[in-house]
């Protein structure tokens, strides 16, 4: 009967919401601090942020200089 399968589905929805309601939540101030900290700590190792010199850029074809 479609009525009872709707009830089964709705019970699952309620069960899931109950699970999600009960999780532990950390304060936003702490979460924000950690996100920022991660960005700062890794900034110097982030090539798209710092830029890549042509000598270390694997996507730049090397031009060879020679003294004539």
């Amino acid at each position, binding site marked *: 009967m479609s009525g009872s399968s709707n009830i089964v589905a709705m019970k699952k*929805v309620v069960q*899931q919401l109950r699970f999600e309601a009960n999780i532990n*939540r950390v304060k936003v101030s702490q979460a924000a601090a950690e996100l920022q900290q991660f960005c700062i700590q890794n900034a110097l190792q982030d090539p*798209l942020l710092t830029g890549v010199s042509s000598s270390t850029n694997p996507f730049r074809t090397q031009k060879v200089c020679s003294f004539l």
Partner: protein
Amino acid sequence: MGEMEQLRKEAESLKDEITAARKAVQDLTLQDHVAGTAVVGRVQLKTRKTLRGHLSKIYAVHWGDSKLCVSASQDGKLIVWDSYTTNKVHAIPLKSSWVMTCAYAPSGNMVACGGLDNMCSIYNLKGKDGNVKVMRELAAHTGYLSCCRFLNDNEIITSSGDCTCVLWDIETGSQKTVFAGHLGDCMSLGVAPDFNTFISGACDFTAKLWDIRDGQCRQTFGGHESDINAIGFFPNGNAVITGSDDASCKLYDLRSDQELITYQDSGIMCGVTSLAPSLSGRLILAGYDDFNCNIWDSLKAERVGVLSGHDNRVSCIGVTPDGMACCTGSWDSFLKIWN
């Protein structure tokens, strides 16, 4: 009061409880916290390589390591590229040309793809005779395959237009776990850096965090006003970034269980198709329907750069594991490597 009515009331009350619990930990906003931080300087990336070879729209690209990537096009081909030389390492003809996604296994041994055929096909790149052949066809989804990601050489997770995600055993071709709960087509998925969880974005405007081993949906994030097309983890695994048809991207923090920031601009009115964070997470590169890719300062929510160069929609984007470059794929049939 009937049982159904009672359950509906309980659901509404639980939703209110979640909203209140999220507010209760909102002692500060991310904007407040980073108020003293400067916006990063203008980011100007140049196209270093253009990968030419596809004959039709490119729908997906995925890096295997920091040199090799695989792309999928509706010309019915998967191409594995050496991005340093632009050489095609493999050009794999597909049974079905209606491909929507592709993935490279972390080991480099396999690639996978799928689309309107509702299947995920696994290809072995390291076969004995050197030919690339279909190793397995994972069939069970009743809707299109929108995304797939390998956990290892024997497990892959797929997302589908049938509103579910599935964890497969590649050897046996069977479904290990079905992740059901979304109320709309699942469009994209991302695996956590520690491989314990994954996130899915769907046409029900929500993103869900799932435990891979026990199949439980742990958290659900709303707020978008249209389909979520793209999703990815912030590099430390503690936050999720989504891109939507509502023209915005959002960052949701997992530990405080809420949206912390929205990346939007009144001048941007088209949908986000794809996104990828830079290595440190400070930059978010997002592809849009208007042929551009915008670069956002993830903490300050300001646009700090644009990648323009494609002549059609940017459909996919990916940053190399070593963070050295990003690759954009477009409906104009080209892939571009930028840094």
